Every structure is written in structure tokens, then in C-alpha cells.
């Protein structure tokens, strides 16, 4: 499974780590990851340190997560993107919707 989830040390954040290609094939797994992440999650972190690639359907999945996590009130950070991944996020101006670091 290319998607792993864990809680942050303080237990407030759900960290979703994606390995390899973040594209349509991970759709269900990504969705399961946040839907089964527990009801007491305050923040979400999408850790892309091991993600090699991200396509437009992955952007769509991030939007779904944002919607699930409360839309405009969602607190979602996207972390450790490689240059290619960051470029795609930048072109789409996703920093307006997510904290990218």
C-alpha cells in the first residue's frame, strides 16, 4: 500500500504519507486514509516526501480532502514536495487553498 497514515505526537493531526505516484490509482486508498482517520482530527498533513509524481486527479483528491475537512475552514498542510510536485502545485496556485511547506 503506497499510503500510510499516522497521528502526530500531540494526536491532533492526521499525517497521510504517500509513496510513489500520487494519481488516480491511489484514489480509494487516499479517501479511506482520511475518512477512517478518526473523528477527532484537527489538522491534516499530506506528506509527499516519498511522492515522485502528482497529476491533476491528485489535485482533485486534495480538493476532496479539503471539502471533507471543512472547506474554507479546513487546516491542511502539504509537506516535503519535490521540485516537480511543487511546480504542479504552484501552477495551479494551490497555495491559496493549502499550506505548502
Amino acid at each position, binding site marked *: 500500500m503506497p499510503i500510510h497514515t499516522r497521528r502526530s505526537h500531540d494526536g491532533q493531526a492526521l499525517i497521510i504519507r504517500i509513496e510513489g505516484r500520487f494519481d488516480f490509482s491511489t484514489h480509494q486508498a487516499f479517501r479511506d486514509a482520511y475518512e477512517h482517520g478518526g473523528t477527532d482530527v484537527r489538522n491534516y498533513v499530506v506528506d509527499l516526501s516519498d511522492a515522485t509524481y502528482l497529476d*491533476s*486527479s491528485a*489535485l*482533485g*483528491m486534495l*480538493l*476532496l480532502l479539503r*471539502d471533507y475537512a471543512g472547506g474554507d475552514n479546513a487546516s491542511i498542510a502539504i509537506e516535503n514536495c519535490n521540485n516537480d510536485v511543487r511546480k504542479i502545485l504552484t*501552477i*495551479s*496556485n*494551490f497555495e*491559496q*487553498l493549502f499550506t505548502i511547506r
Partner: protein
Amino acid sequence: MDEPAVESGPLKILIADDSDSDRLILKTLLRRLGHLVLDAANGEEAVALFRSGAPDLVLLDAMMPAMDGLEAAQEIKRLAGERMVPVIFISSLSEAEDLARCLEAGGDGFLSKPYNRVMIKAKINAFNRMRLMHQALSDQRDLMHERNRQLLEEQYVARRVFDNVAHTGCLDAPNIRYHASPLSVFSGDVLFASPRPAGGMLVFTGDFTGHGLPAAIGAMPVAETFYGMASKGFDGSDILQEINQKLVRILPKDMFCCGTMLEADFTLSQLKVWNGGLPDGWLVRASGEGFSLPSRHLPLGILNADEFNADMEIIRTLPGDRLILMTDGVLECSSEEGQPFGEQGVRRAVESAASGQHPFDALMNAIQGFTGRQKFGDDLTLCCLEMVDQEGLSALPEGTAPSTLAGPTEWKCVYEIRERTLGEFSPLPLLLHICMEVPGLRRKSGEIYTLLSELYNNALEHGVLELPSEWKYTPEGFGRYYSERTARLSMVSGHYIRFSFHHEPKQWGGRLRVVCEDSGQGFDFENHPVLQATEMAQSGPRYAGRGLVLLKRLAESIRFHEQGSRVDIIYDWYF
């Protein structure tokens, strides 16, 4: 009947045995099991009965006169074709080699003599299960073939409908070059271009997440909105707002549309650009210099109307400047080694274009050279718009088909916008719409729109906002003009612009009188060079020379009152 029929009802079973007694025993046995029996005394008869009776299952004696069981089995299997008809050999043979030959001839199994009722029943049931499974599989396969054929046909028809809605507009204009996906598929890319009623053009390139029907369904309202609004005179920004709002409403959360809107004004030599999520556009100056125009916005269909920013970047241009738009299919197309073309590839191609080479050709050649292919993937869209003189484009077709309904010919109306609305709303599409209701006047939409927009822009920018037009004609002043325009639009309290229309029918056509009044200070029309001289002078304190020249050329008469803050125009049109 002492036996219930087998699992799936009676079967039609063909038996062939040259021994009359054995055949009778088998026939009776099978009938008791509830099956229909066709019986043959040799291979030839068996094949003939197979042809005429189409049995579900065949029991063959291996050794018979006049074509033995092996030959008959081969022939039967050939006749059955794709249909699965189990052939079971009944034999007293027990040598492995003999049995193997039976299987090679097409046999599916064996039954040994003498007959055993329990074994026969079990064997027939087993082979029948196999037959049914095979049948189910081929039915499913046929169904899939059929569904797929239907799907392709539906896509083809849908594509025809889509192409009618999302027709290519004015993409064939001499100043546009483009490469778009072939017509047979929905790639998720769209490319539209439309002339504006008063001259100029709008071009939109979009890339929907996903492919196929969902993307096409999203593209339909975008096409309708784009062409509908463009022909009514709305500007790029208005259209973007509307498209975004529509997509937010209809698309699922994870679908959106990356896009670039381009608004070209050939008279003012300026381009407006909005890029949300597409790769950098490129402005290639006539001199060869290139500038990238990066995406500054989120794609369409994500943000709600109150968060969405449709402000377009304004660029001053010269004739011969070209703007290149592309979808990410351009960056993603790959070499034989699997390397993507990327932004590097685009930059290199644009910057190293030979002098005199069209940047569109330079880019297409670079992609072909890089990929080693003449044809590219489905979702690669590339479009290049060249800034030209408006005159060269006068032959463009009208965007939309005229309505055949009768409409008003004798009417008056007054429309006034006031206060804050001056900064938030352009009344031009609405006013044009009112005039276009007059039967026959639609053909003149370009001229009417020009009249109205000149009147309105002069009233707003020079009357209400008191912006000096000569600013626009220097590079430094250009930026200042537009930033000042935005700033002053927020301070329009107490101001208004009022349009009064009067249309009356004439035997030869009609006369439209338009009076445009504003709350500004007016201008010294008595000493304005354009109004004084018979020669067309350059510019004046309030009216830019060009605007006034246009008004004078289009209108039957033009008169100024109230220190120039009231303009009275008579426009005659002919059938």
C-alpha cells in the same frame, strides 16, 4: 419419469453408436434422465444430425463404420465454431494412446462401456456446467463488445453535438494558428475563439481534469457561456466569472478546469490575459523577445464567486506581437527515453526561434523533434494569436445565428447607472442586447457596439473619472492610466452615466438616436481638433482622437451639449 430433469432442464443430446443394442440402451437411459435424444448409427449420420438438430452435447462411439468417431468429432467441433458443444467419447478403449487421440480430435472427455447410469448422469451434468459457463462467458464478451460499440457510437454522436456547441468560432482567422486534439475523442482540452462585436477577439484554452464524457459534459456549458457572452459583448473578465460560477455549481468537488483567457483589442493594441492553472503562456514580441505569462490564479470551478478573482493582466502590444497558449500536454509529451518536454523545452524553443520563424512553427517543430513523432497525444493543445491591424480582420463571420422572431421597431428607453455600480458593472452587453432586438439590426451589432462602447468609455474614463487620454500613449503612462482608473472607480459617489435611446423604423431601414450624458465636467468640444478640422487629428483633452473619429465615421450626425458632457448621436441603418 423416475428421474428429475437435470439442473438446467432437458438437454438435446446427440448419440452415435454403430451397435443397435448399445444405442438403444443409451437412448433409453438418457430419455429417462429427461433429455431429448438424437441418435445416429455412424459418424456421417452424426454430423448430418448435428447440422440439422443443433444438439447441446454429443456422445460418440470412437469406432464406427462410414466415418469413425474421431473424424466426426473433428467435423462437429469445426461446425460448432465458437459455440461450446462438449463431445464425449464412449468407448471400450483403454490404451492411453487411443484415449489421447480422442482428445486431440476435439473430444472433451470419456465414458466407458458398459454404461453406468450414475456415471452418465454425473458426466453429463459436469459437461453441461462447463457448457453453461462457456456460454455465460461468451455472452458476457458479446455484451461487452456490444456495449463498447454503443459507447463509441454515443461518444461519436456526443462529439458531433459538442462540436456544434463548441464550434471552433474564429479559430480559422488569419492571425490564429493552433493545434488541437483530433475530433474523434474527448480529451478534456477545449479551445474556443470568438470575435467581439466591436472588433477584437477572445480566446479561451481550457483543460478539464479527467477525460471522456465527464470532461465533455463540463466543457459544454463553458462553450455555451463563452460563445454566448462573447457575441453579446461581455469582456473576458465577465465571462470568466460566469464560467467559474457555473463550474463550481455543476462539477463534483474533485473536478475543475485549468484555463487561460485572452482578450485582444487590436485598435488599442493591447492584450488582457488571465491564466488559472495552465502552463506559462508566452508573449513573443515582433522583435523576437519572449516573456512568460505564468498562472496567477486557481483553476476555474474551485472558488466561490466572492473569492474568485477574474482580473486580467493588461499588456501593451505592437502589431506582430504574438501570444502562445498551451495545455500541459505540451509539457508532458515525452521523448523516446521517457523524458518530458517540460518548461525547459518550451523556453528553449521560443527563445531560439530563428529570426523570421513563426514561434508556433518553432514550438511545433521542437516538439516533433523531441518526441520523434509527427503526431502527439490527445490532450495537447497549442494556440498562437497574433496582434494585427483591425482592418485585416474585417471579414470575420458573425458569431451566432440570428433569431427569426419579429421584434420591436418603434421604442424609447432610458438607462442610467449610478454611484458604485459605475465601478462594478458594464452596461454595454445589456444595451447592445436591447438594440439587437430590432429585426435587421443584428447585422449591425459590431457598429452599434462600437458606438455604445465609445460613448460609454468616453463618458466613464474621461467624463466621470477625468483621466487624460494621452497617458495611454506612452509606456509609462499606460500603467499609470489603468492603476489610476481602478483607484478612481472607487470614488464615484454622486456620479452617473445616462443613455437614452429612441429607435424608429424607416422605409429604408431605421434610425437609432442615442443620447449619452454623464455627471462629469465636460470638455472643450468647440476647440477640439477632431471636431474642428476636416483632417483627422491625433488626440484631444478629453476624447482620444481615435474614438471620436470612429463615432464621426459611423454616425449620421454627432452633436455635443452641456460643455461636452452630453453627446447626441443619430445612427441610420439600411436593409
